[in-house]
């Protein structure tokens, strides 16, 4: 197989394989040898009638997802599988003005990290200042959370791209469709520290428009969270959701571009997780209407 994708691959219907997916994706395929568990949890009441996020519902969704992720029946016990009381925990959030990480998600995560025994002074939430924030500088554990959206260069912005603020410069990671984003996870400040990824698919953005690549017409209320330990697996599932929505709304020809090659390379070149859906155990919880993947 050639190392890149062309329009003709779309015409052949080969995008699924080229995007690192396997046909069936946990539906009709034989049981995979899973190496990464990913939880997709949705709740109809995650947003109220005014599209405001519900703090208690989001807290419950995070609890349920993390319990399932680590096979525990109690949320505090589950978070003790994620962090230790002596950890210094940086919660890497995202403050992009048009679609930031909901504060309710940040609050719920911090609350459970506290419940797990981590001291408050050892917990930080940050985005742009993570390279200099003392908590992040001395962190022993990272929690990675951000909204899911398309990106003009990278294809999608997910948990892998969320660490770009750990890089010395952002443009350094932009060439070739942001192909080197996976290398961020090998930086000394980051390597081996990511304990949990919470990709917010509450109001994902499936297409960009305008100089800021944002327009509200391309945001929809999916009311979901994609949760896992493996950022590549989490983003691979997020990509499939974006692809499914694009296929439905924009047609097959616009299912994928621009190509999010950084996800596959994070697996095959940088070895920080798996992009092979055959090795991802996707567990769906909660509201199933229009789940799409």
């Amino acid at each position, binding site marked *: 197989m050639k190392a890149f994708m062309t*329009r003709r691959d779309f015409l*052949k219907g080969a995008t699924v394989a080229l995007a690192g997916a396997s046909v069936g994706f946990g539906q009709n395929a034989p049981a995979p040898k899973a190496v990464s568990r990913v939880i997709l949890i949705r709740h109809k009441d995650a947003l109220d009638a005014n599209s405001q996020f519900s703090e208690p519902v989001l807290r419950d969704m995070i609890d349920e997802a993390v319990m399932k992720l680590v096979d525990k029946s109690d949320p505090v016990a589950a978070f003790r599988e994620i962090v230790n009381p002596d950890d210094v925990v940086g919660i890497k959030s995202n403050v992009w003005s048009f679609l930031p990480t909901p504060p309710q998600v940040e609050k719920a995560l911090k609350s459970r990290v506290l419940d797990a025994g981590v001291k408050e002074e050892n917990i930080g939430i940050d985005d742009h200042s993570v390279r200099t924030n003392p908590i992040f500088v001395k962190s022993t554990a990272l929690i990675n959370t951000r909204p899911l959206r398309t990106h003009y*260069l990278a294809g999608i912005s997910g948990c892998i791209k969320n660490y770009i603020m750990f890089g010395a410069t952002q443009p350094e990671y932009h060439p070739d469709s942001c192909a080197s984003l996976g290398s961020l996870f090998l930086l000394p400040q980051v390597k081996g520290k990511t304990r949990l990824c919470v990709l917010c698919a509450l109001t994902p953005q499936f297409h*960009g428009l305008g100089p800021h690549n944002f327009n509200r017409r391309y945001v929809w209320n999916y009311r979901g969270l994609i949760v896992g330990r493996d950022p590549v697996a989490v983003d691979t599932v997020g990509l499939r959701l974006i692809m499914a929505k694009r296929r439905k709304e924009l047609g097959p020809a616009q299912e994928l*571009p*621009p190509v999010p090659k950084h996800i596959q390379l994070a697996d095959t070149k940088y070895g920080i997780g798996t992009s092979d859906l055959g090795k991802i155990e996707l567990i769906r919880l909660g509201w199933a209407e229009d789940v799409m993947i």
Partner: protein
Amino acid sequence: MNGAPLSGRRAVLAGVLVAMASSALGDVKDLARAIPNTVLAFAASGEDAVYDRKTLYDYMDGGAEVILAFDFKDVLVRKFKDPAGEEIDLDIYDMGSAAEAFGIFSCERQSGPAGIGQESEYGSGLLRFRQGRYFVSIMTPGDETKAGPAILALGKEVAARLGPPGAYPDLLRLLPERGLVKNRTSFFHDVVNLNNRFFIASENILFLNRTTDCALAEYPGPAGETVKLLLVRYPKDEDARAAHQSFLLAFLREADASGAARTENHTWTLARLQGTHLAIVFDAPTKAAAEALQSAIRFPIP
């Protein structure tokens, strides 16, 4: 009896003064003084900001490369808020020339025209238009029903202060006119713009960069389908030849001697060279249709 002629002279004088003021606009900082600080219930909020080619990354997440792929100079950013906290973001981009302003405007057209500036579109709380060498974006991240009237009013105020209209990119003159869907024609230089408009490959198989000029045009095909014509002008003949070979190898390996092949969607793709120009027809219903479109390109006589 003298009132009307006097008014006419005043109008002419006013027009001359406006034209002088417009032509005196040195950069977007000069514009800042001319743009109103209030529009309907919205008032300017915070300090204006100006970003240039070096600092644009500080303003944009991911969109900077798309603009830097053109001859962008700088952008004036002003934010407005109404008493309820609804926000409007005004960006005025100096693109260096009218052709470049057309380019950035043309790459994303999706909505209907708003009748503002030379060309415009408005939809879902986002107004985009071009006027002369300027490209303008006015948007609300919030409720478009509340901010929409102010966005359109502000757009009209800004357009009136941007000087005279400018020309289309000269490359567009080569496009066959018959059937051309004019509001779908785009102009750009780099692969990042091509792939967001019409994905061809995940690698830069046409060797596009800031030195290449590209026009992507659409023509009606059968049953509502669209035939695309990509016309690329390279700096040198050898650049065009190398790109042609790369395209055939990566995309159209089974092309016949005429450079044509039938692809998986049962349409025809045809790639041909003409000096510094490489022209590729995609999704033509027949080989003859692809060749007809190719032969209608008005290549410059060497």
